[in-house]
């Protein structure tokens, strides 16, 4: 239970940074997608269920105030958490390139889906422009932030793990 609360606070914290300081840390008016980092990293570090839980909460929050269709992001984030969880315990925690590659793929999929929903269906067919101007810069920036955040999140994950070790042994 403590683990879930800790994760929810982390989600809320990153959401608030994204919403309040997002435009200030933007480079070329592109800001990183902070919230998608969490389901992927936690899915990799802690398994599918944890990734899906975080993906659902983060995705719901992502959509809540700025989107008409609530739940699309949550669905993509849930899948991101699930597929990151496939690699849980198959790799060491120090092999950070695996979750970063997963993050790259999930962020691309997520942005491409939102491009389809927001623009392609509105007859904006210039796919290459949107990929090169918006999607790729965002992926690079997000990966950069994820590299910085990986160690702290792995550390936090261990701290939360120690607190409810019993629960963890039941899952495995």
């Amino acid at each position, binding site marked *: 239970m403590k683990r879930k609360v800790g994760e929810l606070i982390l989600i809320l914290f990153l959401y*608030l940074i994204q919403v309040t300081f997002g435009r200030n840390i933007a480079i070329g008016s592109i800001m990183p997608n902070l*919230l998608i980092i969490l389901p992927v990293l936690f899915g990799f570090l802690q398994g599918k269920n944890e990734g899906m839980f975080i993906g659902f909460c983060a995705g719901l929050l992502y959509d809540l105030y*700025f989107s008409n269709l*609530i*739940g699309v992001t949550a669905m993509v984030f*849930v899948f991101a958490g699930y597929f990151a969880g496939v690699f849980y315990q198959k790799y060491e925690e120090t092999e950070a390139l695996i979750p970063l590659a997963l993050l790259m793929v999930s962020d691309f999929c997520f942005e491409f889906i939102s491009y389809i929903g927001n623009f392609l269906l509105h007859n904006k067919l210039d796919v290459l422009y949107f990929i090169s101007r918006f999607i790729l810069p965002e992926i690079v920036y997000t990966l950069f932030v994820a590299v910085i955040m990986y160690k702290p999140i792995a550390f936090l994950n261990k701290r939360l793990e120690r607190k409810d070790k019993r629960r963890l042994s039941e*899952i495995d």
Partner: protein
Amino acid sequence: MKKKLSSVLSSKIILILCVMLCAVFIGVSFFTDKLTTPLRNAISTVVIPVQKGMNYVGLLVADRYDTLQEIRTVLEENEDLKEQVDTLTEENNQLKQDTYELARLRTLYELDEKYPEYSKVAARVIGTTTDNWFRTFTVDKGSEEGIEVDMNVMADGGLVGVVTDVGPHYATVKTVIEDGSYISGMLIDTGDVCSVKGDIKLMDSGLVRLQYFKKDVVVRNGDKIVTSNISDKFLPGILIGYVKDVTNDSNNLTQSGYLVPAVDFQHLQEVLIIQKKKQNS
């Protein structure tokens, strides 16, 4: 309870359940706000105060940084400005005489002021969109402060956008420059109608598309575009921006070009919300 659940359910079943739950959310939010409004309000009680606090801290830091940087330039500017003040006082005196004359003439012709004054509420920007596609933002005043959906939002004397969603202590504002916004404007002097359309490809330049001027209309760079009488959401006579590079279209029937918004959307901190809706007026 949770422990049992996680041991009984395999992660595939949880995935399916999550996806179904998401589908329910999507389906419900497509048709109605009944499910999302309580959720929004509940979460906003936690999120909005923190957002206000973080915003305050951010502004404080930015202010300090700016003042340190600006002191030197301010001193130099001060010298120049003192000279300007002298010349402007002279001009001002002349203009005052003109306004007296104008007021006298207006009363003669019994003309009202051209545009009525709207009552406004000031609000602070506390959050921007989570994605990179749009420029929507939230402000710290909501339905309990008298804000309603479809109220117009202004800043720097220009049009910012329109309120699209309201909670108890927050409101979401959709801006003029973002993709998908489409409003009717007119030339301030002649009243020729055009349409102002946000385009994501012009985002870097900060411009907005200006379309459908009739071919014979004379449009010059720098002409003011205001909201027209036709629009159903925007009150008439609010400045949107200035014309730039209007040329003939290839169909030889209409003219189109760009519009420089009157508002600096990059540094939007405070906005004014007009407490009067077009539908009621």
